[in-house]
């Protein structure tokens, strides 16, 4: 089975409101998939449809090789879900909740005991197994919920914002667990607003917005797409400027040809693949600055203040090492270096903002 999940025009409508609109996506088997989207974008509804908690209005999906509409019970046997709101029985103990779930999945008694013990140890909650759920902290409840969802060893595990409100240590426990489960060959579907978490764990990411799948790629792929889009946008603007300058020249509006060529060269260089490099030099002086201004790999020094240099440089792999060598050669004392790539949050903002603008324009 190549895909853990395949959706086919999956749609959910509530009266006149379309929560999910003809969603088509394929999620690789044994991957960790991050499902992102702003609040109300349709993430939870999609997850509910894929976990057979809500019926699709139209379209369908194959989950673990079974159709959600025609074989919901087979789907349920193959999946587990850690819901957004902890849905354990609050007046039962952790162990009673786990046993209840195990019996609802039809686990044999011996397997039920061994798995419960193993999973409770894995997430470090065994010591609280006889505590009433409502007496537990949020993190412990979530751990118990995870154990209850994993008791039948599902092939696909859905987690709907599992680490929301948890302390860093508990988050780390859950992240480690997700990676371990994935290494065992399970597919993880992670809905989250925590971009760091998604970037850290996920092989592929889908961004849903207004019920439509707005982006789908690897984290690197999404960032590259964003960089390229930004570059195309900039390039298009610069080309327009060069076109106007050429027309000016034809009409004899240019007196200083050298200055004209220098300006045109500068604009054309802006079209090149650039990235931002920030270097902190404790002994930065004017002569060092002048020297750096003439290095070919540096397109422009955007900012220099209190020893901090921010430069637009060529994006080639060699350009960073070349510039650093030059600074050291000039006797510069480098205290920190950083390059700036778009973050997943930038990608998320870009994708969702673009949708909003299009939505307004369309509307």
């Amino acid at each position, binding site marked *: 089975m190549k895909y853990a999940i395949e959706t086919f025009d999956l749609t959910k409508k509530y009266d006149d409101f379309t929560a999910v609109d003809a969603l088509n996506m394929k999620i690789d088997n044994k991957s960790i998939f991050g499902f992102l989207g702003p609040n109300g974008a349709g993430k939870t509804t999609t997850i509910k449809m894929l976990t057979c908690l809500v019926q699709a209005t139209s379209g369908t999906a194959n989950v673990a090789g079974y159709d959600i509409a025609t074989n919901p019970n087979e789907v*349920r046997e193959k999946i587990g879900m850690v819901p957004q709101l902890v*849905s354990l029985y609050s007046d039962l103990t952790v162990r009673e909740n786990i046993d209840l779930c195990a019996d*609802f999945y039809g686990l044999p008694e011996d397997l039920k005991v061994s798995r419960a013990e193993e999973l409770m140890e894995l997430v470090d909650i065994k010591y609280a197994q006889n505590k009433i759920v409502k007496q537990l902290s949020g993190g412990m409840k979530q751990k118990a919920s995870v154990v209850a969802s994993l008791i039948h060893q599902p092939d696909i595990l859905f987690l709907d914002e599992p680490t929301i409100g948890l302390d860093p240590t508990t988050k780390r426990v859950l992240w480690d667990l997700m990676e371990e489960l994935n290494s065992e060959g399970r597919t993880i579907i992670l809905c989250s607003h925590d971009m760091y978490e998604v970037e850290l764990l996920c092989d592929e990411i889908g961004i849903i917005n207004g019920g439509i799948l707005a982006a789908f790629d690897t984290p690197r792929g999404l960032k590259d797409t964003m960089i390229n889009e930004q570059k195309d946008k900039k390039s298009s603007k610069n080309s327009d400027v060069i076109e106007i300058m050429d027309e000016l020249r034809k009409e004899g509006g240019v007196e200083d040809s050298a200055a004209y060529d220098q300006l045109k060269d500068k604009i054309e260089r802006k079209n090149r693949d650039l990235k931002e490099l920030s270097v902190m030099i404790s002994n930065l002086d004017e002569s060092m600055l002048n020297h750096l201004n003439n290095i070919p790999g540096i397109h422009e020094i955007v900012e220099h203040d209190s020893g901090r240099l921010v430069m637009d440089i060529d994006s080639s792999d060699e350009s960073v090492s070349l510039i650093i060598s030059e600074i050291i050669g000039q006797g510069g004392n480098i205290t920190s270096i950083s390059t700036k790539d778009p973050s997943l949050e930038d990608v998320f903002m870009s994708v969702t903002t673009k949708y909003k603008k299009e939505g307004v324009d369309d509307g």
Partner: protein
Amino acid sequence: MVETKKIMWMIKKDLLVLWRHKPRLISLFLFPIIMIVLFGYGMGGTINNIPVVVVDQSQGPLTDATLSAIKGNTLYDVKDITSDPTKGLQDVQNGMVKAAIILPTNYDNLNTTSQKSIVVDVDSSDQMAAGVIIPATEGIFNGINQQIAVQKLQANSTSAAAVTTNQVAGSAGNPFQSILNTVNLQINKLYGNISYLDFLVPAIIGMTVLFGCVFGMGEIVAGERERGELARLFMTPTSVTTVLGGKIISKLVQETGRGIILIIAAIVLFGIIINGSIVLTVLILMLGALCFIGFGIMISARVSSQEDFMQSVMPITMPMMFVSGVFYPIETMPWIFQKIAYIMPLTYVNDALRAVMLKGVGIGGIWIDVVVLIGFTALFFALGVTQFNRDI
């Protein structure tokens, strides 16, 4: 310092929430209207139209006058006039009427010297109706007795010989005694002396089971749906029928236990006597509980929160309590409430429980109640399960 603005906000917030939950809003206004109508028109405190049957075994002006007096009294609703005393008694035993007023064969013979023994067979299991019928009937026949006495005295004044004969044949001690005691009213309480508490207990048990089952199902279905606990169950390969089946059995056991405790408490604390079979009483209790559980499931099938559930059932359960004969006999209510009573399952639970506990009847005497309750139960479960919204 009074924080007026904050208080105003609290009021505004509550009103907005109410406005945005239309079922709650409708219930808020509908419920008091239903209740006041029920109280105002249904149970205004006076009991009228108690169904009775009159057995007239002789014909004549006195029978006509008696029938006229009974029919003219709004307390009675004469369902039948028959000449067969056995049929009259059977009508009472079958629950068709609350009393049979049986006039003797010599009722119209004013010349007879023997007493006219009028028998009133009263369904004493309906303590409210019996408590009204007995004094009212006594009043009517006291009046008739006086009229007969006057007629006889008038007749005697014109015939001294007849008076003398009557005096001799009647009472040696008091010459007018036979005239004054012309009518002898015998009250026959078919089920003995039933106190109001005896009358109330079966219905209170039925009512307790009703509220326990309906509100309990609201908590374990609508409440669990609201808290996301049902979602956990529906994530597993488990059918709606299995989940609901488990909940039904659990609730049934609880409510049967509660009913048995109530019966034991009534016996121990208040000396209630169960004239019929205790096993049959418990079985009726279980059937009633099952029916009300089905009702709870039917209502909770589509609602998403416990609050909505409560607001949906209150306009049905509270009126059900008042029209189902818990406190007043159904037959004495206006016809519209009688019609409503017959579509309320609690009516049949009360009727069956009273029949077994007070009258001591067996299954043969309550089979209609049982069949109707089974029908209601099947209908509620069918609707509840088929309409159950598995979507979370």
